[in-house]
């Protein structure tokens, strides 16, 4: 009986005391090393330029369907820039070919897969055919962010939806939730991966890799908060449509001359 009492007393005294001591030690160490207040430090430009403030920007992309020649340079450049596995079916951006036949049948092929089967269709049976580049729509109201059980995916202040690969548990829920099929599970890290609008490039004032290499300027990138950016001009001069507007995801990838059959 006495032994038990002594044990409990000892425990009661021992644990909090140890905890408080270690906490004090931590506090002291933290005060020395960290210094600044916690929070997102702005991605600074070292050489005298004004520091990058994410809150001043809101990025989006414009895609002009009539200019896309389906050369697939964007998908290749994206893989090179972002270390996307160089195997078919892992894409951050890709190009689809739509073929709408006279009998209203719609054929969709992902031409970025490489295995380009020559669709020997009679030209008379084709009503219209065109290419549609696709990527993450960086929705203002993203379903993938809503479903993430560990808050590993989020929207940055400048409007890009990105994945925290250290927090992602690879449950694939977001891949299921994305209505645009823009996410994949990275085979090496086993975490969800997706287009970031080449975030590391745009904060340095560069264009995303896909926009950079597009030979016909079918892709336009810009800042929606700026009064005069290429994207604002694009959305002003074209009739704009987004993919699956009925889902209320409010995409920030704007298509000009988009066909109604495009899903």
């Amino acid at each position: 009986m006495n032994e038990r009492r002594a044990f409990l007393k000892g425990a009661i005294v021992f644990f909090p005391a140890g905890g408080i001591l270690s906490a004090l030690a931590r506090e002291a160490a933290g005060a020395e090393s960290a210094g600044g207040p916690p929070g997102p430090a702005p991605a600074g430009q070292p050489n005298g330029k004004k520091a990058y403030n994410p809150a001043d920007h809101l990025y989006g992309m414009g895609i002009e369907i009539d200019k896309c020649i389906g050369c697939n340079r964007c998908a290749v450049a994206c893989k090179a820039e972002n270390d996307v596995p160089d195997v078919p079916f892992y894409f951050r951006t890709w190009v689809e070919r739509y073929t709408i036949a006279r009998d209203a049948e719609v054929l969709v092929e992902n031409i970025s897969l490489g295995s380009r089967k020559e669709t020997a269709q009679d030209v008379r049976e084709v009503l219209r055919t065109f290419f549609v580049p696709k990527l993450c729509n960086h929705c203002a109201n993203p379903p993938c962010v809503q479903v993430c059980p560990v808050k590993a995916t989020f929207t940055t202040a400048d409007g890009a939806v990105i994945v925290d690969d250290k927090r992602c548990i690879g449950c694939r829920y977001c891949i299921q939730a994305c209505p645009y099929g823009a996410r994949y599970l990275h085979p090496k890290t086993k975490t969800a991966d997706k287009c970031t609008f080449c975030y590391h490039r745009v904060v340095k004032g560069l264009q995303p890799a896909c926009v950079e290499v597009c030979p016909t300027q079918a892709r336009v990138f810009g800042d929606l908060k700026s009064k005069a950016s290429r994207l604002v001009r694009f959305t002003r001069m074209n009739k704009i449509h987004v993919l699956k507007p009925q889902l209320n995801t409010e995409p920030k990838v704007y298509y000009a001359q988009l066909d109604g059959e495009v899903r």
Partner: protein
Amino acid sequence: MKVPEQVRRLALLIAILAGVTLLARFVLIPRALVSTDLHWAEAVQREVAKPVKFAGAVACQDCHEDVVVKKAKGFHKGVTCETCHGPAAKHTEEPGAVTPPAPRDRRFCPACHTYDPSRPTGFPQINPTAHNPLKPCISCHNAHDPVPPRVPRECAACHAQIERTKAVSSHALIACTTCHKAPERHKSAPRAALPSKPETREFCGTCHSAGTAAKDAPKEAPKVDLSTHGGRSLCWECHYPHLPEGRT
């Protein structure tokens, strides 16, 4: 009312345990481990720190001014260097150590210039099987200023889509110049001098009208009465002249 001794002790124990839990949650566990915004800020920093591989459109002109000036006037002015030469950020840092590849292979240019019905009309397209087989593209075309080595003889050199469509139609034997008058300059400056297009119903009527206007036309050409057929519509508002719908 007297609180029993056991209850007091139990209350004290619970209070201490609760205190320890709160202490552990808010003091002992570092904020970076539980706070979502710190995690996100860290993820953003990691994202920002990723290496840039494409140097960007303006990076090349400092050293390669001759090529940039040449390209700026040609049809490839909208094509950045890295579209063909690949990511070159490393080359801008160490020009001697890393050289971007120059695609001299015949397989490269067709990525954009193979005939494909899905490509927009007017985009220059060729059939790689038929177009000077086995010859590298650069033996005739300079990729930095791609003009045809000689003025194209046939319209199909640029208007492949129309050519291929027309080839399977009942208008297959009609030359482009029957309906379009192309100024000679159209071949060297395509957009500055545009070819003509038919403007009236009577133009189609020279073959397709039922009256005397089409007496020299081939008998197989379907005839319609221009005064009643189609109301006030122009012929090409319903029929596509490069692939008329009449024959199945």
